């Protein structure tokens, strides 16, 4: 019976590794095509892969030891002499120091990425404030400054508004001011690895850059990542990453529609 359990637990570990190995092909992996499309996103992915490698080695190692111990225990003969052990001090030191060292390494290694993301002193010096994104049950209301103007904290008469449609220039750091009208939401663009909770009463700057131009049906998806009510599941928007000319052109079009006075000049 003991052998069965030994085999069982080793088999479970083997299956887990096999499934994880094939996950990307089964599309149980990162969203989209699996790649991050922002600079910071790629660094986050690199961290993820590093930790994955470390953890995998640890997992395989520990499961192998577990299997060995189980098998030895299962195949012990009734006549074999029992070994009295007072433990092994050196073994305990090793298996404390080594994992601690690994964790310390990871903690220090990732500080840079965290600082770049969250600390102003380490973020890019020049991020362009593109829009104010207001999360609302259950949509994203977005306010852009007029052409040539800077985004102001309060609405301006010539601001341009859209719903569920965020346009940003490609290839350079941009920032949005994240607010919410009612409850907590979270601004999450999976393919850019950007996530920030929107907290009532706060205006939170979120910076990111987009590496690849995407428009139309291929635009990046923006979803809400903080349960906000019965419509949380459908609180989606699209992020269009465009060239500067396209962005300006689009803003002109929207402004034209927004300030439409409905008057049709008689055709001459």
């Amino acid at each position, binding site marked *: 019976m003991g052998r069965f359990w030994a085999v069982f637990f080793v088999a479970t570990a083997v299956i887990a590794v096999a499934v994880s190995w094939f996950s990307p092909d089964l599309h149980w992996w990162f969203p989209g095509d699996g790649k991050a499309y922002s600079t910071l996103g790629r660094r986050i992915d690199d961290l993820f892969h590093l930790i994955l490698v470390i953890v995998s080695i640890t997992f395989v190692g520990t499961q192998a030891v577990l299997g060995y111990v189980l098998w030895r225990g299962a195949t012990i003969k009734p006549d074999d002499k029992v070994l009295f052990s007072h433990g092994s001090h050196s073994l305990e030191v090793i298996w404390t120091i080594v994992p601690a060292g690994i964790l310390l390494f990871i903690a220090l290694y990732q500080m840079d990425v965290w600082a770049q993301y969250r600390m102003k002193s380490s973020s890019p010096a020049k991020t362009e404030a593109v829009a104010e994104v207001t999360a*609302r*049950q*259950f*949509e994203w*209301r977005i306010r852009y400054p007029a052409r040539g103007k800077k985004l102001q904290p309060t*609405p*301006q*008469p010539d601001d341009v*508004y859209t*719903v*569920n*449609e965020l346009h940003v220039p490609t290839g350079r750091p941009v920032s949005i001011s994240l607010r919410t009208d009612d409850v907590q939401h979270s601004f999450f663009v999976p393919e850019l690895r950007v996530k920030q909770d929107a907290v009532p009463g706060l205006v939170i700057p979120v910076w990111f850059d987009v590496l690849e131009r995407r428009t139309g049906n291929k635009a990046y998806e923006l979803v809400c990542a903080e349960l906000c009510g*019965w*419509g949380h599941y*459908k609180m*989606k928007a*699209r992020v269009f990453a465009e060239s500067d000319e396209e962005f300006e052109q689009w803003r002109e079009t929207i402004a034209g*529609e*927004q*300030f*439409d*006075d*409905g*008057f*049709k*000049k008689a055709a001459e």
Partner: protein
Amino acid sequence: MAVGLTVLVAGCGKGPQAEFSLREETTDLIPDAQKVVKATLKEKFGSPHELIAWQRFPVNYGGVKGSVTEVAAEAKSVVVEWEGDATQVAKDAPLIWVSGARAGEKTSVGSVATYDAAKKELTWTGGADPAPVAGDKLVIGFGKSLQTGRAIYMKNCMHCHGVSGDGNGPTAQYLNPLPRDYRTGVFKFTSTLGPEKPTRDDLNRVIKYGIPGTYMPSFLWLGDKETESVIEYIRWLAIRGEFESRVDNDLAGDFSQKTIEAAAAKAKANYDAAKGKEKPEKPQSSAAAKSAAKDKFAEYLKSDVPELIDGSAKFIAEAWAHSEDAESLIVPSVARVTDDAASRERGRRLYLSDKGKCYTCHGIQGRGDGAATEDFWKKPGSEEYYTKRGLHDTWGKPLQPRKLTLGQYRGGRRPVDIFRRVYAGIKGTPMPGFGRTALKDEEIWDVVNFVMSLQYEQTPTKAKATEHVVHSK
């Protein structure tokens, strides 16, 4: 098109069967009248799983029309000229003969047996007799658009707006303001004149951009075809609801149980009160009155009800068709007056004047706290007052006048949208229209400029004498 009614088979139905709900007024009618109303609705509109497309209404039920140009020997196949996109014409597509010998009840409904897209040659199920001739008309995939609309509506809209579009879906109980009840045929944010229905474009805007300040979200990414089909379904639901409402209104006069009971009770009270003095005739009891109404209805059914049904349908069909006409659309006759301090000052004066009287509801500072919100108002068309203070909409719910300082415009933030609100009012609410009557278009633009500036007004203590500031004290 001689065919009046066509039955459409539902798509896959998962879960419990949804049913259209009936209006309170329908269930209040005497049983015989109720039966007739229910049967008519079932016959003309069907149920959510078996929609019936009444062709007299201006709803795009979908499908592609074709006209027979050639008939092969022995009427084995026909060549058809299509009006529009014929990609849905394929084997097993539903087919309806609309004119000619095959358009009779027994042979009109069938399906496509084979179709050669290159030659546009079609064979059909149901036999070669009677044979079609050149000029006969047919429709492929009739009703597909309505079915798609129904599916999308049930998935995205039904939980607030209800199966029948009555604004009473499962989610509605948590919402304030309530979702729209389509069954009156009244929609608030339109680009059309006062008595007109909304255009398809109006409904499209609401679906695409949502209504800020309410729970109506933006369905910007639903897809053009999907949005179009859902708009048709919503119009169809509104038509169905209004049809039921009109028939009810006509029948409620004589055949409403509540009215009969109330009249009998009143007569009895009068009789009891007068007993000692004179000897009036003993009035009918409630049951006797209902029995008399039953007999009266049997007569009415033969003499007036067919015309009632026909007339109601005609009225509604014409109303919805007319809303798409150019003359229903509100188009400003002048371009927007320059948005400067002078225009806003004129607008402010109109806002506070007797011509506009905007402040009575919207408040002197545009905060939606005018004196009208404190008054008790009578229900329209009756002597009864609303139990709550303040203004109400036609759906009977309390309604606050818009707080203009928020910069939140439910019907759209374009200048033309606000122009239209002031010009024609907001249907279903006490917001009146000032166009063509009280205010000229230039004056309306002044008011629009003033209203749109209220959002940016600084508080008096921080006031600076700049172009962008208008003090409204």
